[in-house]
């Protein structure tokens, strides 16, 4: 019995080791959005090409759509841009582009140069709309259902794997509803 106590450190170490092993699969950068499951914020946002007019998520009611937050200053957005163009070509769902904290001219130049995957472009120069949407950084992509409820959110550049494995099946399911 006496010598069993010398096993205690080993047992504790094994316990911690298990957590570390399991923890390797976690991504600490993935922060669940408190907005998932809630109605998309109704704040109107200025259109990129006609700054006097605004758009609000209300207008997308009845459709399953994506909101993609980007900026011409954001290198991750450059990485995901071809993926977005590809997605737009497949016509899965309309994508709304939210140019975040970006000069409108810079946004326009970017779209002219790299191609425009968006059905609609809005511009949030002050970052106020992004606060309502709970944006941590660009790029971020939201999936919104027909009723206007945010169903999923992806932080970081979209990849074909994320789309094929998670977002596209989700959108198809939501469209079937």
């Amino acid at each position, binding site marked *: 019995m*006496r*010598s069993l106590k*010398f*096993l205690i*450190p*080993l047992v504790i*170490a*094994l316990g*911690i*080791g298990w*957590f*570390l*092993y*399991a*923890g*390797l*699969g*976690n991504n*600490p*950068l993935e*922060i*669940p959005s408190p907005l998932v499951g809630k109605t998309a914020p109704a704040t109107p946002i200025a259109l990129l090409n006609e700054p006097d007019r605004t758009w609000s998520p209300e207008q997308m009611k009845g459709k399953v759509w994506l909101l993609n937050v980007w900026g011409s*200053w954001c290198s991750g957005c450059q990485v995901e841009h071809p993926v977005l163009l590809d997605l737009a070509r497949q016509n899965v769902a309309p994508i709304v582009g939210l140019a975040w904290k970006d000069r409108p001219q810079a946004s326009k130049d970017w779209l002219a140069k790299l191609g425009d995957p968006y059905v609609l472009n809005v511009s949030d120069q002050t970052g106020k709309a992004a606060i309502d949407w709970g944006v941590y950084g660009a790029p971020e992509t939201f999936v919104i259902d027909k009723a206007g409820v945010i169903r999923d959110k992806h932080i970081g550049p979209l990849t074909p794997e994320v789309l094929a494995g998670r977002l596209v099946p989700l959108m198809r399911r939501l469209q079937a509803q």
Partner: protein
Amino acid sequence: MTAEIGHFALILALPLTLVFGVLSLVGAWRRDARLMAVAAPAATGAFALVVLAFACLIALFVGNEFTVQLVAQHSNRNLPLAYRVAASWGSHEGSMLLWVLMLAGWTAAVALLSGQLPATLRARVLGTMGLIGFGFLLFLLFTSNPFERLVPAAAEGRDLNPLLQDPGMVFHPPLLYMGYVGFAVAFAFAIAGLLEGRFDAAWARWARPWTTVAWSFLTLGICLGSFWAYYELGWGGWWFWDPVENASFMPWLAGTALIHSLSVTEKRGAFRSWTVLLAILAFSLSLLGTFLVRSGVLTSVHAFATDPARGVFILIFLAIVIGGSLSLFAWRAPSIGTGPGFGAVSRESMLLANNILLIVAMAAVLLGTLYPLAMDTLGLGKISVGPPYFESVFFPLMAPALFLLGIGPIARWRKAELPQIAHRLKWAMAVAVVVALLLPLTIDGFRPLTSLGLLLSCWIVASAVTVVLDGLRGADGRVALSRMRLMSPSLWGMHLAHVGVAAFVFGVTMVNSYETEIDGRVEVGQAITVDGYSVRLDRLTDVKGPNYDAVRGVFTLSHNGQVLSVLHPEKRLYRSNGQPMTEAAIDRSLARDVYVSMGEPLGGNAWAVRVHVKPWVNWIWLGCVLMGAGGILAASDRRYRRAARADVASRAAVANA
């Protein structure tokens, strides 16, 4: 060519460490002197190879060799020379090579300086270190090769993270790693002792100076890191309980417990299995720290490069080293024996209490660091544990430890008398109480927590002074300075380190109690005033640095109308990656810092400016430096070398008789 030479040197070092690790352990087991003799020259050779590899890496960075991936990612033609050198350990791969370099260096040092050790013990220590080195070289070569070429080559490098472009980067990682990796020596001694079944006073005397030196380096490394964060991050804080800070703080706490436990093992032969466990723990925590920083399981401002594949490798390595050593411990420790007993009031009992408090504090830090990970893994949600948790568990644990720190050095071994201790320390306590109560009253009234901090700090100093004076007192009751020579360096080192703790506690108490700060909008010509200090923005200038553009504010600092100095905080924009950086400007003195940093431009000539007045903040780092210096002084004690020789001589005499 340089990259290939470096790579090749590492490839040569890999089998060398494996061979000498295995041969020494087998040689010690079979008592084969020829096999054991391989270790020392092989360890020196492995060190030489790793030095060559590291020199190659530095040469690549200095020579802007952008055909090498690491250089292209972490350096730039416009980066100043000192930072190009420092950039070689600014990346994951480079810092792992630094790790290996330090380990090879410690191993070679042990090989050179352990001539007096019994041959089998020496071979086992070196063998253990060789195998650890093998594991890390394997990690380096297979998952983190720093010499990877980039095809096609980059025309220009991406530059070093601006946060790291600071003199702190030149010194902080090497010092910290010296400490981290130095615990490998204590670990190797513990493993060798377990294999040998030997934990007598001589074993502790050999292990002690190595451990103390490693601890001193770790202390200085953490201290420098904290000092750097203080002026570089621009928030004026000096400790953030960030997972990576915790990763270096946990081995420090375990190491502090270890150096105290080792003293008991050396002087009294007690605490043996506990000492061994602490030695394993200190190094395991160093490895865990490496894992936490490098695997990406935790987010942190420090995690510059993370990759799950590396995490898996380190975790397997961790499992082998920690699991293996703890299994060995469970198997062999029951036969170590507990050593002589001691009274409920004795130096041993106080050191035991100190050890328990330190280890509980370490466990609390570990819990706080891993808790978010555990919650996430168990699917209970994502949370983060912040300073309020650490502060509320850490300080109550440290307060009794600091109180004991004042008594411990005066208590006798084996059995001490409380009335006698109280008699000897009554004046020390009286002085501490008076200072602790009066000092806050002279500033702005009674504050219980401030008084508690001051009480503990003064108590430590006053009791150290009492003990030293008692030591200098002759039979006639007079204090004679000529007796100073009679006190050993290890005793002076201990007192110095303890006074360092007091200085640290004083600094923390004062800055937490009396710091003031103000944020404000300042236009050119305007001033902002806090705590009697006025900071006036005289003008703004544009500055072109070697690799950044900056707006520099010229501020005049005055106190009650008297001009003290001119400060130049900057807001920099690094050209290569467009990253902004705040460079604070600090007017330093022993009694206070005035810390000025520029926030955002507010249009026109106006800037958001933040000014902190931090009283006695430099005593925090001064205290750490005293602790580190105390450790080095204690380890320099000739007793360790003399005793080792005497022990060999007496063994030889026994053998001859």
